[in-house]
C-alpha cells in the first residue's frame, strides 16, 4: 500500500546498512489420512493458543451459474450442525473467547477455529461437527441469505470494495475467474438450503482439502484427535462439477485494444481507478522476483507511483500496484484515487510513471533498496499462528514444498539488475492497457475516452461486466 521513486544513489550508500533479517518457515509435519485429507501440524509455544484451519477447494470459481453460492455455503456451515444448534454453537464459542469462522474466496473456502489450548475439548468437537455434519436449517439459511443480499447493495457505497470485481469482469469475461465472490443480487436471491447443501456435497471433499493446526498442543494427542474426527470422512464421490472446478486455468481475454470500463457513481466526490492487464500465476518461476519489481513500482511508500502521485504532486493519499497471482493465473494493476477534478492529471501521471519501466528502467540503488526492504520485512509476516496457518494453506493450495517456499529470500537476493529490468519488461503489460474508473460519469466521461474504448455501467446495476 505504499508508493515511491528513484533513490539518490549517493545518499543511499552513505547510510544503508546490511540487512540481516532471515527467516525460514518453522518445521512442520505433513501427512495424509486414508481419505486423502492432507494434514499439516506445526506446534508453536509462544502463547497458549491453538489455530485450526480447514482449507477446501470450494471457492467461487466453483460457483457455476449460481454466483455467490460458495460464499453462502461456507457462511452457512456455522448455522448449526447435527449436535449443536446455532445458539449453542455461538454461546459455547463466545463463552471461551474463541473464534469460529468460515468463508470462501475465489479459489478456496476455509473454516477457522482459534481458541485457548485449555478449551480444546470444548471447541474442537464444535469445529468438527460444523464441517462434517452441517444442518443448514432452512430458516437460518434464508435469514443469512437476506443479510448477504443487503450487504451486496451496501458494498456499492464504497468504490474500493467493488472495483476489483469490475476489473476481473473486464479481464476474465466469460471465465470463472470473473465470478464475484459474494455473488449478484439476482443469483443470491434464488438460493436456499437445497442449493447450499448441493454445493456442500459436491465440493466439501477430504481428498482435496487440508487440515492445518498451528499453536500450543501436543502432536501425538492432536494426531489421534484428527484421526478420530476426520478418519471416517468420505465425502461424496467426485462429480464432474467438482473435477472441473479443481484446476481451471485463468486465461485473461485477449486484448486487442485499450479499453475503459466507466462505472458511474453519480454522487462520487473522487475517482477511483485500476489500470492493468495480465499478470502471472502464483507458481510462476518468476513470481518471487516480480514481488521485488512491484515493490519498486508500487509496493512501498517510496515506490515510483507513490512518490509521483502522492509525495511530489499531492494528487492522492496513496498510489500502488499489485500482482494478483492465483492458482490458475494472475493479473496486474495500478490503483489509486483522486479528487474528481484531478482525474486526468492523476491517470496521466500514473501512466508516464509506469512507462519508466521501458523508457528508463530500474537502477542499481533502487533495486538494492527494494531487496533490503523485502528481506527486512519478511520475518514479521509469519509471527502469529494465523500467519503460519496462512503460509501452510498456501503450500497446500499451490502444491509447494517447504523448500520452494523458503526459496523466496534466496530468489530475492539473487535478482540482478539486468534480470530485474528484463523480467519487468517481459511480465508487465506495456500497452493496450485496461482501465476501470469509478466516479461521476457525467464529469469524467470525456477524460475516460482519452485512454481507450469506453463502455459504461451504472454502479447500481446488478452486474460487474458488460
Amino acid at each position, binding site marked *: 500500500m505504499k508508493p*515511491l521513486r528513484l533513490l539518490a544513489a549517493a545518499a*543511499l550508500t552513505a547510510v544503508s546498512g546490511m540487512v540481516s533479517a532471515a527467516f525460514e518457515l518453522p518445521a512442520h509435519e505433513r501427512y495424509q489420512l486414508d481419505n486423502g485429507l492432507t494434514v499439516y501440524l506445526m506446534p508453536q509455544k509462544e502463547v497458549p493458543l491453538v489455530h485450526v484451519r480447514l482449507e477446501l477447494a470450494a471457492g467461487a470459481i466453483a460457483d457455476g451459474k449460481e454466483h455467490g453460492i460458495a460464499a453462502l455455503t461456507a457462511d452457512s456451515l456455522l448455522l448449526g450442525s447435527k449436535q449443536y444448534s446455532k445458539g449453542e454453537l*455461538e454461546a459455547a464459542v463466545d463463552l471461551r473467547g474463541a473464534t469460529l469462522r468460515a468463508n470462501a474466496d475465489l479459489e478456496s473456502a476455509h473454516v477457522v477455529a482459534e481458541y485457548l489450548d485449555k478449551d480444546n475439548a470444548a471447541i474442537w468437537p464444535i469445529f468438527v461437527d460444523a464441517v462434517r455434519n452441517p444442518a443448514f436449517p432452512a430458516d437460518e439459511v434464508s435469514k443469512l441469505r437476506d443479510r448477504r443480499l*443487503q450487504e451486496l447493495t451496501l458494498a456499492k457505497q464504497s468504490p474500493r470494495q467493488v472495483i476489483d470485481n469490475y476489473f476481473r469482469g473486464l479481464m476474465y469475461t466469460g471465465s470463472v475467474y470473473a465470478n464475484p465472490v459474494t455473488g449478484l443480487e439476482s443469483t443470491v436471491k434464488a438460493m436456499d438450503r437445497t442449493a447450499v447443501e448441493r454445493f456442500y456435497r459436491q465440493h466439501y471433499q477430504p481428498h482435496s482439502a487440508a487440515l492445518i493446526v498451528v499453536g500450543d498442543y501436543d502432536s501425538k494427542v492432536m494426531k489421534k484427535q484428527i484421526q478420530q474426527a476426520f478418519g471416517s470422512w468420505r465425502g461424496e464421490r467426485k462429480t464432474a462439477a467438482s473435477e472441473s472446478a479443481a484446476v481451471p486455468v485463468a486465461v485473461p481475454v485477449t486484448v486487442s485494444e485499450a479499453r475503459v470500463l466507466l462505472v458511474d457513481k453519480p454522487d462520487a466526490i473522487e475517482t477511483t481507478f485500476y489500470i492493468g492487464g495480465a499478470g502471472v500465476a502464483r507458481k510462476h518461476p518468476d513470481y518471487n522476483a516480480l514481488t521485488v519489481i512491484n515493490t519498486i513500482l508500487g509496493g512501498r511508500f517510496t515506490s515510483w507511483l507513490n512518490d509521483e502521485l502522492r509525495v511530489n504532486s499531492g494528487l492522492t493519499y496513496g498510489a500502488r500496484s499489485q500482482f494478483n497471482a492465483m492458482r490458475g493465473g494472475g493479473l496486474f494493476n495500478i490503483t489509486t484515487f483522486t479528487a474528481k477534478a484531478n482525474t486526468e492529471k492523476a491517470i496521466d501521471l500514473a501512466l508516464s510513471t509506469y512507462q519508466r519501466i521501458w523508457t528508463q528502467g530500474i537502477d542499481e540503488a533502487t533495486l538494492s533498496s527494494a531487496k533490503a526492504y523485502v528481506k527486512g520485512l519478511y520475518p514479521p509476516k509469519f509471527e*502469529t499462528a494465523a500467519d503460519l496457518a496462512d503460509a501452510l494453506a498456501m503450500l497446500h493450495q499451490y502444491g509447494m514444498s517447504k523448500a520452494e517456499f523458503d526459496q523466496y529470500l534466496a530468489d530475492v537476493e539473487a535478482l540482478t539488475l539486468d534480470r530485474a529490468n528484463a523480467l519487468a519488461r517481459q511480465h508487465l503489460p506495456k500497452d493496450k492497457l485496461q482501465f476501470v474508473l469509478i466516479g461521476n460519469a457525467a464529469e469524467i466521461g470525456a477524460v475516460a475516452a482519452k485512454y481507450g474504448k469506453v463502455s459504461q455501467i451504472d454502479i447500481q446495476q446488478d452486474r460487474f461486466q458488460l
Partner: protein
Amino acid sequence: MERRPIRRLLTALGLLGLCASAQAVTTAKDVQTFTLDNGMKFLVLEDHSIPNANFYLFWKVGSRNEYPGITGLSHFFEHMMFNGAKKYGPKQFDRVMEANGGANNAYTTNDVTVYTDWFPASALETIFDLEADRIADLNLDDKMVESERGVVASERTTGLENSPWRTLGEEVDGMAFRAHPYSWPVIGHESDIQGWKKSDLQAYFDTYYAPNNAVAIVVGAVKVAEVKRLAKQYFEPIPAAEPPRAIHTVEPEQKGERRVFVEKASIRAPHLLIGYKTPASNHPDYYALDMLTTILAEGNSSRLYKALVDSGLATMAGAGYEEHFDPYLMQFYVVAAGEGKTAQIESVLYGEIDKLIKDGVSKEEVQKARSQKLMRFYKQLETINGKANTLGTYEVFFGDFKKMFEAPKAYEAVTAADIQRVAAEYLKKSRRTVGILAAKEE
C-alpha cells in the same frame, strides 16, 4: 487518521481477563524502563522470537490540543514529520529507512500521535538517528507543506467517499460536543486544512514535540543496554521544553437527547451511530464500562447481535468504548436491513439497554466478557507490534504500562452489579446523541 492508507484496526485496548496464571507469556518484569535527563521515557522489551524490532513513539498531542482555525493540524503534523529535517532532507527519512529494510507508519487520534517504525534489529542505530534528527531539527519545507495539503485533502475525501462511518461520525461528534475539542474531526475541517500557515505548524512543533512530551517503546531482538546507550547518544541532547498547557475545557453537561441526520445519495441502507457520554480512561468505572460494551455487542451470542441482527432488523450491530484522556462516548453502530426500520431499531436497542439496567447481567455473561478480553490479550502478545502498541497505550492512557499486566485483576474485580450500575448511570437518554445517515430522511 493514519499517514498511509493501511486498513488497520486501532486495537481497542480493553484486554485481559484472567491471564495471571499464564507462564511463558510476557510479564511486567520483562519490561525495562529508563528516563533520560530531558524527561523522555523509554520502555524496552527484549523479544528474540524474530530478528526484527520496532520503535513506537507516543506523543501526548492530538486533535484535542487544537482550536478552531487549526483543526486537523495534529494529523497534518504527523504527515510533516516525514518530510525532511536537518541531516535527512525531504524524502530521506523514508528512503533511508526502506533501504535499511524498515518501514513505518503513524496515526493520530483525538488524544495522541503515534509514530511506528518496523525494521530488522540490525538497523536499530539508523532508526535512532532518523528519529532523533526529525525531533531535534525538523525542517518545514514550503513546497512539501503545499503538496502534503493535497495528500491530506485526498485522505479526507477518500474517507468520506468510502466510509459511511467517517461521514456520520464527524456529525455525531460535532453534535455531542459543543465546547470540548472532541467536537471536530481528527482530520480537520476542509477550510482549516487549506487555511493554516507554516507559522502554525512551527508553533505546534515547538509546543508539543519536546522529548518530555513523549514515551518511546522498543520491542524486539535488541539489548536493553544498547537501547539505553543509543537513547542517551541520540535523544538526550535534545532539550526539554515547558510542558504544554493542560486542556481545561470541560464539556457542559448534556441535558437531553440530541439528534442529527445526514443525507448522502449513494447510501443504500440507513446507518445509525448512537453515542452516550462516558468517562475518560482513567476513571474507576473504565473496566466496568468496557465489560458492558463487550456484553452488549461482542460475538454472535451478544445481546445486540441477537436483538438486531439475528432478528433481521439490521445487517450489523457493534459497540465501541475507546481510550480517551477526557470523557468521550460509548458508541453503538447499526446498519439497518433496508429502509423504514430506523425507529424500530432505536426502540429495540434502547429496550435492550433498559432490560440490562433493570435485570442486570448473568454470571455467564461476565465470564464470557472476561474470556473475550483474555483472548484479545494473548493475540496482542503474539506480535512484537502488538506488545509495543499495548504497552504504550497503557503507559499513556492509564499512567503506567504495569496496568496492562494488572488489568486481569481489574477485570476480575468487576461484578455483575458494577456493570448494571454503570449501565444505569451512563446509558441514559439525556446523555445520548443519535446520528442517522441515509439517502433520504425518513
